[in-house]
């Protein structure tokens, strides 16, 4: 075991990065920690208000529409599709990063392209879902849905839903913009000139984080 670490390597003694990590990547990790606290604060606020309420609407009742299929009501089917799209876009991002390590310019561009498509698809789905709920009378400060026990619900169900999914959607949107910039830089050969695709890796960290946050948002609003 001890042979695995070359004798005399003192990572913390200065003159080198202790994690052998470039500064921008370290910054990204700390930024993600910070952003995790932003979302954490939102979700804990949501939990606090929900636990102090006597009852809450049933997500299986609220989220059961699917575009095109009309009146067929399938609980949570559409949001499952959204989640699947977002997770697949994480997979394509992994492939873009991996190809970046191999230095394959066009492969990177291809997988980045698919990630951007996935991002837009997710945002499109979210836009449809918001519009649909809006047509049903839901918005900030307006909640048409009854509690699961049939009583009148406070507006906080929709208030939190639109605020937190909106904030997440804003993050996805920023991620798509970042990915588009990465795609342009890849195609222009900026990374090829630098000799590494580190920027793609950093964009990837952000993208995976946004996906991970969605898992929590999804759980809190649709499953619980």
């Amino acid at each position: 075991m001890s042979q695995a670490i070359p004798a005399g390597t003192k990572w913390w003694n200065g003159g080198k990065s202790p994690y052998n990590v470039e500064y921008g990547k370290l910054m990204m990790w700390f930024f993600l920690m910070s952003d995790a606290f932003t979302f954490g604060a939102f979700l804990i606020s949501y939990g606090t208000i929900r636990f102090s309420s006597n009852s809450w609407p049933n997500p299986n009742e609220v989220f059961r529409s699917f575009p095109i299929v009309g009146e067929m009501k399938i609980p949570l089917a559409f949001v499952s599709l959204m989640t699947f799209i977002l997770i697949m876009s994480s997979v394509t991002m992994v492939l873009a990063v991996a190809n970046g390590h191999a230095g394959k310019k066009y492969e990177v561009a291809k997988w980045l392209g698919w990630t951007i498509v996935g991002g837009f698809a997710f945002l499109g789905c979210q836009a449809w879902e918001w519009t649909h709920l809006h047509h049903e009378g839901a918005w900030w400060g307006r909640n048409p849905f009854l509690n699961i026990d049939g009583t009148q619900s406070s507006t906080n169900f929709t208030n939190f839903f639109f605020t937190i999914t909106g904030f997440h959607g804003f993050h996805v949107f920023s991620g798509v913009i970042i990915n588009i910039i990465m795609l342009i830089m890849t195609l222009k050969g900026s990374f090829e000139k630098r000799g590494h695709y580190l920027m793609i890796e950093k964009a990837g960290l952000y993208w995976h984080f946004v996906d991970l946050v969605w898992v929590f948002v999804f759980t809190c609003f649709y499953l619980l």
Partner: protein
Amino acid sequence: MSNEAVIHGHGVAAATHDEHHVHHHKETFITKYVFSQDHKMICKQFLITGMIWAILGGLMSVLFRLQLGYPDTTFPWLEDIFGKWAKGGKIQPEFYYALVTMHGTVLVFFVLTGGLSGTFANFLIPLQCGARDMASPFLNMLSYWFFFLASIVIFSSLFLETGPASGGWTVYPPLSALGDANEGSKAGMDFWIIGMALFVVSSLLGGLNYITTILNMRTKGMSMTRLPLTIWALFFTAILGVLSFPVLLSGLILLLFDRHAGTSFYLSDIFIASTGKALPNEGGSAILFQHLFWFLGHPEVYIIILPAMGLVSEVMAVNSRKPIFGYMAMVGSLFAIAILAFLVWAHHMFVTGLNPFLGSVFVLLTLLIAVPSAIKVFNWLTTLWRGNLRFTPGMLFAIGFVSLFISGGLTGIFLGNSTLDIHLHDTYFVIAHFHIVMGVSAFFGMFCGVYHWFPKMFGRYMNNTMSYIHFWVTFLGAYLIFWPMHYEGLAGMPRRYLDYSGWVSFRQFGDLNRFISTVAMVVFAVQLMFIFNFFYSIFKGRKVTSQNPWGANTLEWTTPIRPGHGNWIGEIPEVHRWAYDYGKDGREFIPQTEPISANESGH
């Protein structure tokens, strides 16, 4: 140079970057003084913006002290300046609330966070770690300009017709959420929220830079345990900021929705007397905001005090000509404070209806902070003990800091007990406590830093006579202002009231209040003298003629007297020892760059 290769990417990029630093490139006025990416210039921008804010924030306190000290007197000149806000020469209630709110906001965030961390993290981190600049000079520049934008927004709110935010610096809803309830909760509150959001962005950009620079860009030989305590303190400060400010941001976003989108995050069952309207909001919780606010608010006080502690530790060791006592204990206690900072926020909420059992947990955690704080105090005292003290202005402020920190810290133990807090909450006792322990103390840390590093910043010294007058008047003044407030608070005198003469119980303090107000004005005038000294010395001060005027060990004193962008000419020096080899083996001081000699004693 392997440093550069690791931190600035690989191969070709590293080589060009090196050149960029070593050779002077042509700089215009704009790139040198305005949109500068040199950490030393950004430091000065933060410092001077912070000073402007400090004068404004201090002036606000002079105005409301005028009201508190002389509640029956009219000042027609106030009406000439402030118009309807001081109708008949008397400060109106709305104006009074606006003044105390903005005084708190400005001093807590814009002076003691932006001004203090912004100045010294920018100045000392690259210089004391041995780096040419911050990890990302560009983001560093943005950090200042976001701070500037935030300043502009908050400053313009002072000129709104309905006035700036006036619900207290903690902006508790429902008051802050309802424009109908209060003039200051109209546009002023929106300006406040936007200004603070920009401030959070600034603090995040700065903090990320500070953390990565300290972790990644230390020069060869500068292990973490050889870092000066200033850097350790600024490191923990940055981490606290990066992790706590986002929670405030979330809280403010929810507040913004409550104000403008008809949501009920913080609102429930409200009737507004002024309009005679019952609001439809249901299901929200005003206490939720307090939790979110104080999850930032409490770490915030450590964001303010930790840099001051770091500066004081360094200046004290240099001017005692002795190693800092208990270096590792100092680092450990900084770490302990940083951890506990996140676990004590509800002690600000003991009387909000918090579950008493939960309260008792927060009492325990709060009192635990006394342990690392006491460790630090004892280490400072033992550093002074039998030292060869040089009473430079910086050193005097460092000693003054320790005195104030002890006095203010002891009253913290009173307030940390939830039972005592039933009596003491929202009284002048609280005002006395936090002004001494984090307000004036942090200012003393800041002054100590300014006096000590002024020669490095501007290549000149500040005037000593004015500095000593500044110290003694501020030090005695601080005690004369805040000590009496403890008695008022113990007698139950509540804070945030415009006029106490209507109460028989508090009328007895009329003379005391007048005394406090008088001292406050004298102390404020002396701060103007400090400002004069500062700017006068930039241009006319005595010139620094040696590289290391204080005989200090740290790396910033190995740079040229007026270092250019890139700090060192040629290679960055290598570090061979910790920063505190003072009075060792018969030598007064041994710089960090000196290799350990064969027959040197251990430490």
